[in-house]
């Protein structure tokens, strides 16, 4: 009986698997006036609200060491850029 059960169980476990779903988040195109954080200079960053000289320098250094930003959210990896601050900046930033 057990021998008959094994293929049944195998078949069951294959059908009991979900299929893969891929997500592609629709990205709203940033406004043309948005600053590209991969090319902006220290002065460009300093002009943004709540960004001082020190943070601007830290952003440039981060970019030099780790390569260009893939997403604007990654700005939060820099000390001094909190979630709240980022939320304010997000509409005027882009990363390409």
């Amino acid at each position, binding site marked *: 009986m*057990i021998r008959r059960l094994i293929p049944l169980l195998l078949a069951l*476990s294959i059908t*009991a*698997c*979900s*299929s*893969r*779903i*891929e*997500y592609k*988040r629709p990205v709203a195109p940033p406004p043309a006036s948005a600053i590209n954080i991969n090319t902006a200079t220290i002065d460009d960053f300093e002009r943004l609200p709540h960004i001082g000289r020190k943070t601007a320098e830290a952003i440039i250094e*981060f970019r030099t*060491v*780790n*390569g*260009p930003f*893939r*997403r604007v*959210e*990654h700005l*939060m*990896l820099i000390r001094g850029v*909190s*979630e*709240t601050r*980022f*939320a*304010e900046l*997000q*509409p005027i930033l882009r990363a390409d």
Partner: protein
Amino acid sequence: MFWLAVCFAVGILMAKFVAVSFVAFLIATIAFLILALIFRAKPIATILVSIAFVSIGAALFHGEVKQNTETRLKTLYDNKSFLSGSPVEIEGVLLGRPEPSADGSFLTLKTTSIRYSGSDRIVTGKVRLFMPQRDTVQIPDNLRSEISNFKSEISDLKYGSRIRAACNLEREDEYLNPGVLPKREMLDRLGIDSTCSLKSSLLIEHIADESVFLPLAWVYDQRAVMIEDLRNGLSKPAAGVMIASLLGDKYFLDKDTADLFRDGGTFHILVISGLHITFIGGLLLVFLRWFTRNRWLQFGVTTTILWGYTLAVGADIPVVRAAIMFTVLLFGYAIYRRGTLLNSLGLCALILLAGRPSELFDPSFQLTFVSVAAIVAVAYPLVEHLRAIGSWSPSAATPFPPNVPNWLRRVCETIYWNNARWTIESKRQIWSANIFKSPYFAGRVGDTIQKAFRYIFEGLLISLIVQIFMLPLSVIYFHRVSVASVLLNLWVSVFIAIESFAAVLGALLGNILTLLAVPFFAVAEVMNWLMLSVPRMFAMMDWASFRLPAYVGTGRIWYGIYFVPLLLIAIMIVRWKPFDLKTNSSIIGRRFLYPVAGTVVVITAMIVFHPFSVARPDGRLHIDFLDVGQGDAALVTFPDGKTLLVDGGGRVNYRKKDDEAEPFVPDTRGIGESVVSEVLWAKGYSRIDAILATHADADHIQGLTDVVKNFRIGTALFAQTPTDDPDMLALHEILKRRRVPVEIVERGDRLKFGEVTVEVIYPSVSDDANVISDNNHSIVLRLIYGSRTFLLTGDIEREAEMEMLNGGGTLSADIVKVPHHGSRTSSTFPFVEAVKAQYAIVSVGRASPFGHPHPEVVQRWKAAGANVMTTGERGMISVSTDGKDIQIKTFQP
């Protein structure tokens, strides 16, 4: 089988300490097996097979060490290909649902690739990410909807979700002191390569949901629902206990409750392991026996449900271990092969160790196996013997009464003799007999009471035997001897079992109708209160447990020796034949039992009173500046062996003060417990002669609270003691409870510790009721021994430095603890000039959140001729002097 497992373990031990290659062990294994085959008919074959198992163990251990391949994340961090704390983008698949906690959730990720310094590569290994759950209140209105939309997508994460997270992965040891468990070792035990706390959940991208086995996903979902139900239905402490003990998520346990469990030696009940699996498995089996006699069916259903549960609670190593053990035992039952329990245990050990040889060094493995072995090899046979003695009635196998001392027979008969059963039994026989039993409570107690008494007796006996066997492990790993645990284990298990039933029923019925759940949750609450009431009583009176150091180095041998007489007793119990008239077993027992038991008592005393744990006084003045991260703690050991602990480290609490009626304090180990106490234990102390709190900042005094809890303290020294500071209040409360005398010191006081003079050169103490104790009220000490001086400065800043300079006292010192972790607000030029130190020691974290020590300050001390060292880079810094020379040793070269 048991002996083979022992041989295997010996092999692993050997491989760890003897440098012989994998191939050599492999060849040895094959050679011995061939030899065993050749001499298979001779007794020598047993020995050969045993030796073969020793070498298999060693070979597999080597194999496991080699297994850490080049793509493994932990290898990449350990060989410095990646720097700990550097930003990375890590991609991987979630191994379960996000594990909820009070202020966020933990994600365990099976990694597939990483992006480091702009380049991608394939990696393997597990990482654990913490995703904070912040309120969106501070986010501007126009963005709130967009961000919360995105957050809800993140909250959809489930088992099998593929995510990419940008974070600063960490794999680095912190708090570098002797006796402190390195972080990397702790991660390895958990099977985790590195960890990270994400700044925001926006740093996570949900890429895909991989194909998963649906029943398993369903199990994970149900567990999440159950956690939510229990959180909603029960009070925070009760929910914490239930979620930890039933569902294996300890993040909701509050510190107070968890400490009660620890004090009482019952914390293991909260950790899902052997006890739970046995309980659930046993219950299932009893239930299934009503329906079917087919043992294969019983085996199949029980193991399926048990493994489902194991996976649901996160399949942590201890749970898997217990599940394997239960499966092996049950398999024996299914094939009608009971064998001895000890052999089954041996088989389990073999399976587990063959899979992961390094597990032998895992405390959790050792604790499980020693406790199960104590039950199976000692407690169970002993209970069987006592039962047989107590309930003896003549039969063909045992025609004569037990040959044991009278008192033992009477005790056993009191517990086990059932007269009613004997009356019925004797009527069914063709012969008749009069037997004389002498139970102490003859005729005075009913059957039910006797039965209850029997269960309590057996429970206590088993609990006691387990505690005796666990003593060395408990001292080595937890520095704790829990006196009350024999009793509390029984108490807590009974109530937690009832509470669990009530809570589970409540949660299940709550899904049908909320009202139905109410009475069940109420019962669970009452049970929770009752369960904790007795441990709380013991804890209040400081009776529950006491803390003590473990021997280190060669002193460890005591713990090994301890098991020798215990094993002899175990063998005696197993071989004890209470009904054997010829050998007069009781005399054999007595002849050997008393000396052996005496030895156990002596070695226990050696362990508990640890007379040789502290190094002998060497006539030198020692100061150890502990690495407590951002904070201060320095242990002064005087030439005559007296000790003074200046500050005890601590963590600054950045969290907002909880306004809720029921504030939640998570169960985390503070610096005082996990670092300062551990260092003091590693040095062999259980008593500290004096503690001194320089001022009331958390990173200086919070840890002292744990030290006062864990050690006997001679006296506590303070300057100003504000009455409204929470950390100061907590410290004073515990000082009062432990009856430690408090003394106030101020400028001008001179304390003598043998030949060493300790001058208090700051501050003056005000009599004002509203005193404060901030940085500029720190106690400054100057220690003088022979021609050498040391200056300990707390967190003084510019103002205090000026006041001292203007006061005109001598400030010069050979060694100075740099004020305020090297902050720029301290170490003014005139002060640095006046001290003229040879060595300037900064007590600071590896990566200080405040940027300490400030480069300017470091430069200032260097310019004045000082050699600057930080605890962040060097770990614990130990300086010593005989009054003439100065020696410096650091934990990290």
